[in-house]
């Protein structure tokens, strides 16, 4: 046991330190021998596998190394966040496109499932019998059906939507068909970038003003209003910048040409199914986490806040949720990691994420080890960044104990 010693034992006589004896009866000697044995067994196994791999690769005449990343890919990719052309661009770029697609699913999925899960988790504790029962059924059903089956089912449902010619038409602007969701798209110009920059600057300014306001409240007991500054900095300032640059505003509407739509933005059925499926599935888990987090707050907190005259919603927002957050964060982190890892199920419904594109690369080039290594590195770094961020957040909100 390597625990710190009791302070009362500070002056006690301690057995003199002895070196390791080369005898089987010395536990430290035994430990060292066991460790050497186990480590060499593991090393031997790894060496054996590596040796076999090398031989097999030699026989198949597969060159190792990441040189293939610079070759022209020729993989058609349906949706890419960065410009990509299969006839020019390389495998490396194809995999980067996949990485962006994975992140697109993971980030938006995390946001959606957190919102949905929190609403459902709070509703499950509602006094209204109907709400609490329905949310309980929602959670139980979704948690007990494999996520892959749910994804496939969503995808099938989206495929049974009408063809583009009979698309569900919402105000001649949004069209829902089996080719996905088409919607009007703002033509993005330089002025919009500057407005965005202004918005970010405004948000930072509002945040700083809020900090000052909170400090003033601590000093004087009165909190200066924050919303005028927020309105001015985050709405008026970007609008002014945009207007000063000529207020460009062109919207491209989708239009039916032949058998499909052209123009406008599109959410592909694959992405749509993946996003809905993952968010709904994960929201069931998040709902349970939120519910147990709220229940972990002692009922005395509710009663004390009620005695102070706070309304239900204010108690929940100001007293209970901040305390529940401490219980919620660690399991929430693992759900965020799960949704990120589950985004690799994209491969089953044909959305091209990093796993799917690495797999295609691997099949075309035969570079199995490199392909798998890329996937491992990508996911390990995403997992690690989410864990680090959540640990930082957890440490920040942790209860400071005496």
């Amino acid at each position, binding site marked *: *046991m390597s625990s710190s010693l009791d302070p009362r034992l500070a002056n006690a006589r301690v057995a003199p330190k002895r070196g390791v004896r080369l005898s089987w009866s010395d*536990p*430290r000697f035994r*430990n060292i021998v*066991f*460790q050497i044995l*186990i*480590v060499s067994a*593991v090393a031997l196994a790894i060496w054996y596998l590596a040796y*076999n*791999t090398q*031989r*097999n*690769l030699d*026989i198949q005449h597969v060159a190792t190394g990441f040189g293939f990343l610079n070759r022209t890919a020729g993989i058609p990719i349906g949706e890419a966040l960065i410009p990509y052309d299969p006839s020019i661009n390389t495998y490396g770029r194809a995999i980067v496109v996949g990485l962006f697609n994975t992140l697109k699913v993971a980030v938006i999925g995390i946001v959606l499932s957190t919102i949905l899960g929190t609403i459902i988790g709070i509703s499950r*504790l*509602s*006094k*209204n*019998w*109907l*709400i609490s029962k*329905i949310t309980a059924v929602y959670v*139980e059903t979704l*948690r*007990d*059906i*494999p*996520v*892959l*089956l749910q994804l*496939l*089912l969503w995808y*099938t*449902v989206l495929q*049974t939507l009408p063809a583009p010619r009979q698309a569900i038409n919402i105000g001649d602007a949004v069209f829902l068909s089996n080719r996905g969701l088409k919607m009007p798209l703002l033509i993005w110009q330089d002025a919009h970038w500057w407005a965005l920059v202004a918005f970010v600057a405004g948000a930072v300014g509002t945040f700083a003003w809020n900090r000052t306001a909170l400090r003033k409240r601590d000093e004087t007991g009165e909190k200066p209003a924050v919303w005028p500054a927020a309105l001015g900095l985050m709405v008026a300032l970007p609008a002014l910048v945009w207007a000063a640059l000529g207020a460009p505003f062109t919207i491209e509407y989708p239009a039916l040409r032949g058998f499909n739509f052209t123009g406008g933005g599109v959410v592909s059925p694959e992405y749509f199914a993946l996003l809905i499926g993952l968010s709904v599935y994960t929201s069931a888990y998040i709902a349970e986490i939120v519910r147990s987090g*709220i229940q972990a707050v002692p*009922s005395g907190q*509710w009663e004390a806040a009620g005695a102070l005259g706070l309304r*239900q919603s204010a108690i*929940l927002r100001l007293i209970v949720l901040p305390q529940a957050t401490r219980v919620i964060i660690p399991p929430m982190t693992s759900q965020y990691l799960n949704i990120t*890892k*589950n*985004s*690799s*199920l994209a*491969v*089953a419904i044909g959305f091209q994420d990093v*796993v799917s594109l690495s*797999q295609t690369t*691997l099949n075309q080039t035969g570079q*199995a*080890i490199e*392909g*798998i290594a890329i*996937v*491992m590195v990508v*996911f*390990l770094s995403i*997992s690690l960044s989410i864990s680090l961020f959540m640990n930082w957040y957890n440490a920040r909100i942790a209860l400071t104990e005496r």
Partner: protein
Amino acid sequence: MTPPANNTAASIHLPVASRDRPPRSVYGPMAWMRANLFGGWLSSGVTILLGYLIVRGAVGFFDWGFLNAVWTVPTLPNGNPDPATCRALRGAGACWAAVGDKWRFMLFGRYPFDEQWRPAICIALFLGLYIVSAMRQFWRKELALIWVAVLGAIGLLMWGGVFGLSYVPQDIWGGLPITLILATFGLAFAFPLAVLVALGRRSTQMPAVKLICVLYVELIRGVPLVALLFMSSVMLPLFLPTGVNIDKLLRAQIAIILFVGAYVAEVVRGGLQALPRGQAEAADALGLSYWHKTMKITLPQALRLVIPPLVNTFIGFFKDTSLVLIIGIFDLLTSGKTAMSDPTWQGSSTEIYIVMAIIYFAFCYAMSTYSRSVERKLDSAHNR
């Protein structure tokens, strides 16, 4: 969120002699509805809206699934079913005839039709094994023997080749038995591995072993199962000496064992950590060796503590076995998807998905109910 408000009125002091029934406003279905469905404007509005949506949804589903559904179809002269009545529905009703025609394929895959009683018995054996393992009076060492015997019997039944059973090669097995095999063998092999890894990760005196265990757990938990399955199907053949080939199912099984092992190891480690330190110290003071201490004192208590999270982990990866679809192994989900691709039953995939979802749900719901009941028992044993 707060204690129900309807008992405030009930605590009005009435004379003892009064034997009248409580007034309608605090007792009976109307009072219950007032308190639980129509407590305030917002609550009433939500109740009415939700009620409307539920009724509409239920009526729609009833129309689709029962009223307009086609349960059987006539048989064509050539012996094949005639899906014309199903096609005529155009999605207005369910075509359960598709499930009726395909259910044996969904459950048993491409296993020879006349021999399908064998996988059926295997499913029953698996169910029996789960039920026996769930009962407390069987939690003893003999249970391990029962597992070995039953798993052996299942292998015998599936492969055959002895006792007059015809030999069925592994690559035409399919359906639910494959799902159960992947999950059960996965757990059976991952569990000992997980216990060793958990002990290694807790080890204070063997830093090298601890490092290996930490690396294993974190590497596996950091990557998705899909990547591990790809890895097993692509890289395992490279790892083995030239000429040695192992089949697809075994490769997926190895990936699943490694995957589950890492997660179960974390669960077991949680149990070991939750155990009061005094237990291990007392064992040390008695002069027990490490293995005696572990096998007789700490591990049995820790495992008992982690039964509920262990069952939850098992539920999780029971569902995750469906991912083998991606590398083309014929489990329940793959069989269902293959059944859907039959041109005769084009457009009936929703029905087949629903049936598969019900099968998965039945297994997972049973397990999660069980896990909750064990948790309650453990809690009450703790709070005595």
